[in-house]
């Protein structure tokens, strides 16, 4: 049967199933899901909760501080072999000679594979081990051996000869006339010209009294999770187990089953601990395919983990953007038109997570038009990276808003208030809850240290004055703000089971993942709250396609809002059964019972029964609660919001920017665990700071090869770069989003950080920042251009006299 194409405008309902919209990473999909057997009463803003909302220590912290936490690279199976990949050293061309014999001759080497051994498996946008090289770092062979050291030395001995071909690694180059062919299917991605519009932009421009036009450029950023991509594979007959560092065990399972043509129930994917993902680990990695192939051939378990260079070359990235932005407004600040024409060089593959969407949703404006052109380049494939598209779009939009504010002589925060979007104008829907105005107000009212600082920009007025060698006096300070929207409501399908064991302990089983976000902890809290159990008695089992029921990937800031309701429902279901059993044992009506702290009590009586006593009475008769995530509410958009302010200091002699403080206020609905939530917000801000100031994959354009695939040369923030962080979460439940009242917050905090910093730098030096990262030489260049334009203005006014 042909799959009927479902679009967002055609929700269908059939039987007990219902169609519902789910937004993940800016993509809206229609899911057909069964209606849950029941939907618990939402935990509204005034719900009396005792465990949800508490600062419970991270459940797996003990394993992590003792070194006991077993990550994929720590998996050690009996007889396990180790793998090293051979990667292409050219950006485009053909492998004309590949000789594995020297590797196979190394003692301890067990196998080596290349293109003929890979079948029709595709990974990262190219056929696995393809002799047709399309980017530097593309895997072309793999060697496995008794130890990693032997495998690496053997991989180095593989003889590779290339015939190079012309490459294109920049957007301008792939779009040029007679550009080299990056991929066989063309340089512009199929369907990669995307245009979205509402209203009449031309009319909006005609109505405007102020129009600003700018070009913004953002860089390629690398996820640089400390744990690289990697997998361990082990066959048992026709059954395959893969331990993988992944954000989605079920996605990974279906990828592997598809690639190896296995039934889904012959593949088990396990995720226990993982050292960060940030969007790059949403399916089976190349490493998983290689490990599975080598394991099948050798009959032994095989581990295949990226080395750091491989990780930085070939595990995904946030693509660069070139964005031509026009903002038009009336003198009172009201936007009349917004335009963004963007080109996004994805690399050799990727999906269309572009910068346009935030232009349609962050502000109220009747006329908006965006175009995005997604092109392929001879570089590693794009992959989701924490708020893909919105981070790049927010930089352009929020910097342009500050430029517009300056042109209109309106305070930047005031301009954002003037253009506040009460509803989702892109989809013409209401928000389940939107409290961005409160975020702005809290930001405005929060402590600002440097507003009255005497060091502020006067000293930067002229080059002669700014070039004072005294360190303190050559520093200028500035303040900038930026804001954020991001769909974080999650949705079905997601399932959970809650089991009461005979000793009164409780298991929560759900096939989700914990990337370091704390999902194990918050689900223990939700289950304990709903069941009336002690949180310390609740164990959360996740990350195993054979042990735990389906949930989707941990992406799109959707784990809590998707899986949380399923966990709560499973616990409520278990509680219903538990109360029925207790009512029978205590010979009272169910309505007479209350439950908390793992004890069922009879109201207005001293009689009670603990979960353990109940379990003992029931013996091996199990109480198993089943929960699923229900459909999203019709006609609502589920979005998290926030605003940040950066305070910076710029050394106008060296161009070095130092961020002094970031104040962040975010609206994410109910906060299940404030400590963990604040940690995640701080982490998002710090990644945003790295993106703003240091992080950039640097290529040698002439050969198309990345120059900085190391942690020394690809600069992520260190402890010494950390500013003062002042994080506030509004923590007001959003019961319309789902019955836990929580939306997501993993991605939102990274979105406004870079534009807030850029606006602060612009404020400090009196010159706009239009390109990331804000390296010292870009700051000095901005100052030079500022001075040059002042000089030419002075000259012009002199000659006019």
């Amino acid at each position, binding site marked *: 049967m042909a799959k009927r194409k479902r679009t967002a405008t055609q929700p269908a309902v059939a039987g007990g199933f219902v169609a519902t919209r789910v937004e993940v990473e800016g993509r809206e999909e229609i899911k057909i899901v069964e209606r849950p057997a029941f939907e618990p009463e939402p935990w509204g803003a005034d719900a009396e909760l005792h465990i949800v909302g508490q600062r419970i220590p991270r459940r797996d912290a003990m394993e992590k501080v003792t070194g006991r936490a077993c990550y994929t690279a720590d998996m050690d199976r009996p007889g396990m072999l180790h793998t090293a990949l051979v990667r292409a050293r050219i950006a485009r061309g053909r492998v004309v000679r590949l000789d594995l014999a020297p590797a196979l001759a190394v003692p301890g080497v067990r196998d080596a594979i290349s293109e003929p051994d890979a079948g029709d498996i595709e990974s990262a946008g190219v056929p696995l081990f393809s002799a047709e090289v399309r980017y530097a770092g593309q895997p072309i062979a793999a060697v496995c051996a008794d130890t990693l050291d032997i495998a690496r030395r053997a991989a180095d001995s593989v003889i590779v000869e290339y015939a190079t071909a012309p490459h294109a690694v920049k957007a301008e180059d792939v779009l040029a006339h007679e550009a080299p062919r990056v991929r066989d299917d063309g340089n512009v991605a199929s369907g990669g010209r995307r245009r979205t519009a509402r209203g009449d932009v031309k009319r909006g421009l005609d109505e405007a009294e102020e129009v600003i036009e700018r070009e913004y450029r953002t860089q390629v950023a690398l996820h640089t999770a400390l744990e690289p991509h990697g997998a361990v594979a082990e066959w048992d007959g026709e059954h395959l187990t893969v331990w993988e560092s992944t954000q989605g065990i079920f996605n990974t399972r279906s990828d592997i089953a598809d690639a190896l043509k296995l039934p889904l129930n012959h593949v088990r994917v396990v995720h226990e601990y993982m050292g960060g993902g940030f969007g790059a680990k949403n399916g089976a990695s190349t490493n998983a395919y290689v490990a599975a192939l080598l394991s099948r051939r050798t009959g032994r378990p095989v581990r295949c983990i990226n080395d750091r260079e491989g990780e930085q070359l070939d595990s995904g990235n946030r693509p660069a953007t070139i964005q031509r932005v026009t903002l038009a407004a009336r003198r009172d600040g009201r936007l009349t038109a917004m335009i963004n024409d963007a080109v996004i060089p994805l690399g050799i593959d990727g999906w269309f997570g572009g910068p346009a969407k935030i232009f349609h949703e962050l502000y109220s404006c009747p006329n908006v038009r965006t175009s995005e052109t997604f092109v392929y380049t001879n570089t590693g494939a794009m992959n989701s990276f924490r708020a893909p598209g919105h981070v790049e779009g927010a930089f352009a939009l929020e910097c342009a808003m500050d430029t517009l504010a300056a042109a209109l002589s309106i305070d930047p925060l005031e301009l954002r208030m003037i253009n506040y979007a009460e509803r989702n104008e892109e989809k013409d829907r209401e928000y389940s809850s939107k409290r961005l105005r409160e975020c702005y107000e809290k930001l405005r009212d929060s402590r600002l240290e440097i507003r009255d600082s005497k060091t502020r920009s006067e000293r930067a007025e002229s080059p002669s004055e700014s070039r004072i060698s005294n360190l303190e006096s050559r520093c200028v300070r500035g303040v900038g703000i930026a804001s954020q929207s991001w769909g974080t409501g999650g949705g079905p399908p997601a399932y959970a089971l809650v089991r009461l064991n005979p000793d009164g302990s409780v298991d929560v089983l759900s096939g989700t993942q914990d990337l370091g976000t704390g999902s194990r902890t918050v689900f223990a809290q939700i289950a304990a709250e709903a069941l009336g159990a002690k949180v310390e008695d609740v164990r959360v089992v996740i990350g195993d396609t054979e042990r735990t029921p389906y949930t989707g990937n941990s992406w799109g800031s959707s784990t809590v809002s998707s899986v949380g309701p399923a966990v709560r429902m499973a616990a409520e279901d278990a509680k219903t059964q538990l109360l029925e059993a207790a009512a029978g044992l205590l010979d009272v009506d169910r309505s007479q019972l209350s439950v908390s702290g793992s004890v069922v009590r009879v109201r207005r009586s001293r009689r009670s029964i603990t979960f353990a006593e109940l379990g003992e009475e029931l013996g091996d008769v199990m109480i198993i609660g089943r929960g699923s995530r229900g459909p999203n509410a019709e006609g609502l958009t589920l979005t998290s919001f926030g605003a940040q302010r950066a305070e910076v200091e710029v050394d106008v002699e060296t161009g070095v920017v130092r961020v002094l403080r970031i104040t962040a206020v975010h609206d994410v609905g109910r906060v299940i665990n404030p400590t963990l939530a604040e940690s995640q917000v701080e982490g998002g801000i710090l*990644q945003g700071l790295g993106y703003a100031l240091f992080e950039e994959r640097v290529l040698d354009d002439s050969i198309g090869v990345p120059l900085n695939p190391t942690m020394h040369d690809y600069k992520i923030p260190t402890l010494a770069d950390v500013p003062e962080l002042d994080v506030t979460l509004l923590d007001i439940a959003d019961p319309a989003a789902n019955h836990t009242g929580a939306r997501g917050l993993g991605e939102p905090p990274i979105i406004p950080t870079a534009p807030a910093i850029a606006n602060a730098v612009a404020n400090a030096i009196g010159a706009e920042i239009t390109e990331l990262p804000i390296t010292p030489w870009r700051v000095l260049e901005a100052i030079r251009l500022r001075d040059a334009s002042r000089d030419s203005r002075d000259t012009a006014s002199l000659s006019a006299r």
Partner: protein
Amino acid sequence: MHLRINGADYALELPPHTTLLEALRDGAHLTGTKLVCDRGECGACTVLLDGDPAYACLTLAAACEQREISTIEGLATNGELHPLQRAFIEHDALQCGFCTPGQIMAALALLRTNANPTEDEVVRWMSGNLCRCGAYPKIVRAVRAAAEQLRGDGQA
């Protein structure tokens, strides 16, 4: 090769060019010490050699014979967590946890030389230990809290 790790003796058959990191992870099966950059850039493999911090990925295992090697696995004594470990839990000074063993071992080395570090001293000492989740602010708090605890206990 004879190595003394966390007070226990290990006799390992390893090639002479084996790094201490390989010896720990693949030889002694102590995988708490992590491999991240493999070239002394990130601090994730920090261990102590006779009490001094060292990057295990840049240290030859053979050069560690006759030396006392301390790793994250040996920090808790008789099941009792070290104050640094407790402080990392209490202050939520970790997220994914991959850099955590290196962070804690680096902090341990700091507190051995400076029982009462200022915030600046913690920042300077620990800034070679990278964390991509951004637990940095809480790491500083945890290290200082542990220092205070240790001073109170008279252990430092």
